């Protein structure tokens, strides 16, 4: 009980510190607060000589809160209700289709490259925001830690490479770019965009939350077939 409280408090503190460090560096995509916090915690555990398994078991309450936090993400969709209502069909087609391209291309390419089975499972949810990726992996019994890390990495890669790609291909539409970035680079891309253009950031957040919700509803029932 006390050990749980310490583990959760330490994790929250590490995350707060990581967020401050990232802000200090000017919030570049590569300084992901989640990654920095995980490194801080792992380092702290190594110094204190606490086995990771023991930390995982004691930090369970914090992990459990991911469920309620996922519920709370409905706010993100609701906050951008006006944008969704104004262009419901194009937005749903783009985000739903883009999400499927993200999942399908990852599964296909993983097979083509002969990736290990656990990596294949993990990359299937790479395009989703990490909370959704973790929820789906938990529901399907997949490699949760691997999927979480790959999702974060995907966000970093997308935030760094997608905007230059759009520039190079002369894709200039603000909405098209925002939806593309939100679907491909979820929260990291959304954060990056929000700092430059808050309204476009809203669309990106909408894409991220919609893609995650659609995937969490569609992927687990189809998992046996997808992971074949």
């Amino acid at each position, binding site marked *: 009980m006390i050990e749980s409280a310490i583990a959760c408090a330490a994790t929250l503190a*590490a995350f707060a510190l990581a967020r401050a460090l990232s802000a200090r560096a000017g919030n570049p995509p590569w300084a992901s607060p989640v990654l920095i916090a995980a490194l801080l915690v792992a380092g702290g555990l190594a110094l204190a000589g606490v086995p990771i398994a023991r930390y995982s078991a004691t930090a369970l309450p914090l992990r459990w809160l991911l469920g309620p936090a996922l519920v709370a993400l409905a706010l993100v969709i609701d906050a951008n209700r006006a944008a969704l209502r104004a262009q419901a069909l194009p937005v749903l087609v*783009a985000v739903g289709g883009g999400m499927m*391209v993200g999942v399908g291309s990852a599964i296909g390419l993983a097979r083509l490259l002969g990736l*290990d089975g656990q*990596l294949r499972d993990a990359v299937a949810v790479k395009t989703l925001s990490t909370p959704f990726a973790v929820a789906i992996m938990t529901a399907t019994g997949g490699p949760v830690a691997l999927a979480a890390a790959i999702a974060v990495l995907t966000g970093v*890669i997308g935030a760094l490479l997608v905007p230059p790609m*759009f520039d190079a291909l002369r894709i200039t*539409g603000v909405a098209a770019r925002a*939806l593309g970035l939100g679907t491909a680079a979820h929260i990291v891309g959304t954060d990056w965009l929000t700092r430059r253009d808050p309204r476009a950031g809203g669309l990106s957040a909408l894409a991220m939350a919609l893609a995650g919700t659609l995937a969490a*509803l569609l992927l687990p029932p189809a998992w046996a077939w997808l992971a074949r």
Partner: protein
Amino acid sequence: MRGLVEMAPGVGLCVALALAGDALAAWVRLPVPGAILGLVAYLLWLTLGRGIGWSRRGAGLLIRWIGAMIVPALVGLQAYAAVLAHGALPLAMLLVVTTLLTALATALLYRLAGGRG
């Protein structure tokens, strides 16, 4: 302290909806994360728009700290060090290619479907 009191109802609502979603998914043997059912219920509730303003502050708090809730999962990554070391290069290639493809497909689909801007 007052902030905590203002946030409690929203946190409570999200916890209740997550638990209800888990229970419903288990009951009807739906193979989806229970929290997603909670998300859909909360979204419907917000869309109907009545008397839900009291939940926003607490739900916002959960969203602000969602990153911290992912940290325990990430710390477990060490268990996969061998898998990662072995597949690092193809994995990096896959992530770059599929991420660009996903963004491009989304933007093009938006235009094809008649989206403006």
